[in-house]
């Protein structure tokens, strides 16, 4: 599997990484090498082998729906790069009038 420059730019967009042109060039070659190595899994992973997502058998964990103390809002936003009126401040996400 060889990754083109367009492939790398597409994946970078999905990953929200504003890569530089030099990074796009070097990553294309490196990712192709790494993926070629990783593709060796295909030599033995046949469809009759079930996938394992987790090494230890666990069931879903439930607890009673009871109110408990949690992080106060002021502490939760204290580490935000930008906050306003007790909320996280972000650039506009939805298009339209203000």
């Amino acid at each position: 599997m060889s990754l083109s420059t367009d492939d790398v730019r597409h994946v970078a967009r999905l990953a929200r990484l504003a890569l530089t042109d030099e990074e796009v060039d070097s990553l294309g070659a490196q990712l192709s090498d790494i993926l070629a190595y990783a593709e060796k899994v295909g030599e033995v992973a046949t469809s009759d082998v079930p996938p394992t997502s987790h090494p230890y058998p666990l069931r879903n964990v439930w607890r009673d729906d009871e109110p408990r103390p949690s992080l106060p809002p002021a502490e939760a936003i204290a580490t935000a790069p930008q906050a306003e009126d007790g909320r996280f401040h972000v650039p506009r996400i939805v298009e339209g009038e203000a």
Partner: protein
Amino acid sequence: MSADLVTATAAQLLERLNAGDVSAAEVAQAHLDRIEATETQVDAFLHVMHDEALAAAADVDRRRAAGEQLGLLAGVPVALKDIFTTRGVPTTCGSKILDGYRPPYDSTVTARLHAADAVIVGKTNMDEFAMGSSGENSAFKLSRNPWDLGRVPGGSSAGSVAAVAAFQAPLATGTDTGGSIRQPAAFTGLVGAKPTYGRVSRYGMIAFASSLDQCGPIARTVTDAALLLQAVAGHDPMDSTSIPEPFPDLRPSLGAGVDGLRIGVVREFLESEGLEPGVRDRTTEAIERLGKLGADIVEVSLPHAVYGVSAYYLIAPSECSSNLSRFDGVRYGLRVGAGTAEEMMAATREQGFGAEVKRRIMIGTYALSAGYYDAYYAQAQRVRTLILRDFAAAFEQCDALVSPTAPTTAFAFGDKTDDPLAMYLNDVFTIPASLAGSPAVSVPGGLDDQGLPVGVQIMAPVLGEDVMFRVAAALEAELGFDPTPRGPNALKAAL
């Protein structure tokens, strides 16, 4: 002079502290002095908690004087890998994207160390987001190997092993996703254990690959490693993958010996192409010694382990690409750029992440993207099943497995930084147990002909920490390894 306080093991310090022979304040001061005397050479810490450590130690002394019941590690200095959140104390995970972040909460590991009355002396350096096998991916500094300051300490728990090997602390926490406790412990002549997946809570341990990440102890002796693990292990309702079964008391295992145990030698690992002769020789000798001590040595095969690195480098990056999406410049850490939300996030992540982290996010995003999921992530998970079956079959023939921890001893800075794949292959022997969720520990096996430490790995079945520590303690007692760094390029600081 306080040299005997920094060379003492945690178990010895506890004995002296409990006997009233020394105060926690004296123990803390001795280690802070040692950090000051050696830190310019080893660069183990991102943040030394000087005042907090002295306050915690004074508190232990005061409560001891008042006759209060104290915790399992009362007054013992512990270094904390910077992946564990510490309330109000800088936590960066080795990344610029978290530079200056002071979390509003403690990880469960941090909280349990506080509950055990341990004295946390600082936050240790690491490969950014625990991605690396040399420490060279830290965004802040290079930690150096106390045995040879021109060589890497291993990674990702680079600062934790550098600190313990340099006698800056008797104990440190590490985390291991594909070998990040065991390989650096091997490189620095230490004991480093990864328990069964789920034994130690991941709450507040910054996530890399959630189905693999596990916390474990780093120490100069097997007994000390068991002590630290005992203090942090056990069920935690804050981590849904935390194992409900109680963690066993490891003390009876430490002196039980290996007489009558069946120990499996992994054929493929000893015949591996990249294995250095010095590492192979020390491993073979360790196996012979275990046989001499009464263990039954059997040869076993893990035929699919050779595919472990391939599977790992699909599974871990896939999970990391998802986990690291939380670093988006909104709730904590760095924010860069203006424009739309997407532009701000892309600019923040571009500037905040280092090269290896970007590489893995890219691999993972690609492997999970439309049309490729079945070819990559799902295939890797099938290989994981095959490796689990290999381990199950091997553990029908034996109680524990022995192998080298890493194919080489510590390498020089810059040796593998231009070739990511070569760096990844350093994890070839540690990754299989990670994929299987099995406990595994690295124990010093001696030195190679360059005078560098060799690690011997002991792997046990899931929940088999007791048998793993049994073998580790027996091997340690038989080999009598001296953990003091020595050699022409070793750390220079009189003890």
